[in-house]
């Protein structure tokens, strides 16, 4: 086994990469924006926002919030994946596999298809709220149904199988809702299920940003306990970890983290799976480093995916969920085949 690089070097390198990628992301797209326009747009935004021209507006109202939202969502999904992998002691778990994403999709579909009928609405918060509730429902269903009656422990096989079942259930719910929905709503559901960042604005940046930064900071506090969990639940208890409360807290953090992000941008798969894997290869598995670094690497990967999704069919856009899957699946399979990577 080759010697792994020092933990400390990775974070700054990733940070620099993130800045570079963000720079490309805000410059290129359907319209390329020059450096001068970026600077003048920033200046005018604070001094005389009315006098901005079209390109400057595109930058300030579309490109920039989109890039920032992209970073936050990527960070949320990647850290969510890291937390779940640590919690379930399994490297192939991601928010999509244990129902979080499907539940959110179901909640969103419910809003698209029947929101008008129910008449329940809290303005633009309705969609995120519906998605969060759906995610909470499906994830807790998977979590509790997969626990053994006798020991109260969750076996990985039980967990994944329950996840498959609950996923199928919620996806058929989504299918049913798009079947009964009228055309514009049905298309909204489809788009949402493929993931899109085109709806980014400063409100969504603010909400997702608060949720992302807050939950990541909290989750860092549990990194040590999640490390102890690596050698088993009993062993972790011998090391002073209260397993029951840890499971609850981490699961809740994860649902908030993933559901809020998913609520604004739709279902984006594989980021939560790939990012921790890549980092483990560079870095080992210490969660204190994994959480911090996967936040940055998640941002980088999603920014790249977003850039690809905007560039391939320019000026049209590809749904970002398709890009992450097309890029993510081969990487995942490659990782699985590596001989020196243990499970």
């Amino acid at each position, binding site marked *: *086994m080759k010697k792994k690089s020092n933990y400390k070097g990775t974070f700054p390198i990733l940070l620099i990469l993130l800045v570079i990628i963000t720079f490309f992301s805000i410059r290129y797209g359907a319209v390329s924006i020059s450096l001068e326009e970026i600077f003048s747009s920033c200046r005018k935004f604070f001094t005389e926002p009315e006098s901005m021209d079209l390109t400057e507006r595109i930058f300030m109202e579309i490109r920039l919030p989109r890039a920032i939202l992209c970073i936050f969502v990527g960070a949320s999904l990647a850290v969510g994946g890291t937390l779940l992998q640590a919690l379930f002691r399994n490297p192939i778990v991601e928010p999509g596999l244990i129902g979080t994403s499907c539940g959110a999709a179901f909640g969103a579909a419910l809003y698209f298809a029947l929101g008008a009928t129910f008449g329940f609405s809290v303005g633009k918060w309705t969609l995120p709220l519906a998605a969060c509730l759906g995610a909470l429902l499906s994830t807790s269903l998977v979590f509790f149904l997969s626990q053994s009656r006798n020991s109260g422990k969750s076996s990985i096989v039980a967990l994944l199988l329950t996840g498959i079942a609950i996923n199928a259930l919620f996806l058929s719910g989504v299918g049913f809702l798009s079947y009964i929905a009228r055309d514009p709503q049905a298309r909204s559901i489809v788009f949402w299920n493929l993931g899109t960042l085109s709806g980014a604005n400063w409100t969504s940046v603010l909400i997702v940003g608060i949720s992302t930064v807050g939950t990541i900071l909290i989750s860092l506090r549990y990194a*040590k306990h999640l*490390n102890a969990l690596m050698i088993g639940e009993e062993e972790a208890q011998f*090391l002073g970890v209260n397993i029951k409360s840890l499971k609850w807290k981490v699961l809740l953090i994860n649902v908030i983290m993933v559901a809020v992000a998913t609520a604004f941008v739709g279902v984006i798969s594989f980021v939560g799976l790939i990012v921790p894997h890549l980092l483990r290869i560079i870095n*080992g598995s*210490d969660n204190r480093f994994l959480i911090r670094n996967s936040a940055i690497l998640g941002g980088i990967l999603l920014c790249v995916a977003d850039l690809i999704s905007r560039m391939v069919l320019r000026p049209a856009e590809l749904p970002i969920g398709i890009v992450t899957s097309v890029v993510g699946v081969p990487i995942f399979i490659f990782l699985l085949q590596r001989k020196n990577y*243990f499970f």
Partner: protein
Amino acid sequence: MIQANNITYRIGSKTILKNISVNFEAGKINLILGPNGAGKSTLVKVICNQLKPQEGSVFYEGIDIRKASVAELAKVRAVLSQNTELAFPLKVKEVVMMGRYPHFSVNPTAKDEQAVEEAMHFFDVEGMAERDYLTLSGGEKQRVHFARVVSQIWYPSENGCRYLFLDEPLTFLDVHYQFQFMHKLRELLKQQDLVIVGVVHDLNLAAKFADHLVLLNNGELLSAGTKTEVLTQENMKTAYRLEPVIHNDERGMYLFFE
């Protein structure tokens, strides 16, 4: 000293431990013996507070362990279980550092680093500090876990004793390391505040190293005391359904089965 009084533990209608009372003193190698399914591991789990007995209680220095919190107990009590497997690749020194987790909040202090280094040196695993734990052999992994559990209680506690529980620690070791490990335990016991309780299968190893033996059979306490009191022909016949020839000469005591 650990006192376990009238421990009864049931799973469903099956009684695993029947009214067992035993004491384990500091400064001695205390070993629990018994045939498969006698309840050895269960007894260890009860006295290290992993399992709650339906009846009876366990006292560390007179304090009921049910009153201690998981986090507090972890500072003075380390447990080596059977079949510890790691879910992710991790460096050996990181695995050993886990032993120090109860003692620091976010980042290890210099004291924790020192304990890890000394424990790794003590068990002769410092050469693999940078290696991936998952690439180690069974015996090497076991020695890494020795270093981990010992680093957990490396420094004397401010009040009271330290406790080390070892559930079949010798399983993956060759004869050399089995003996080395038992000698290391003896060395650790020079610190007077250490209580060591272990489960072993090898009766001759027990005869050679144990100061105090507890023999379980079918969930009941068959015998407890020194090796000459416990390792008798009659007890062996009851527990193992075999009649050994027991030699006791100037080289020590050993049991010969045929």
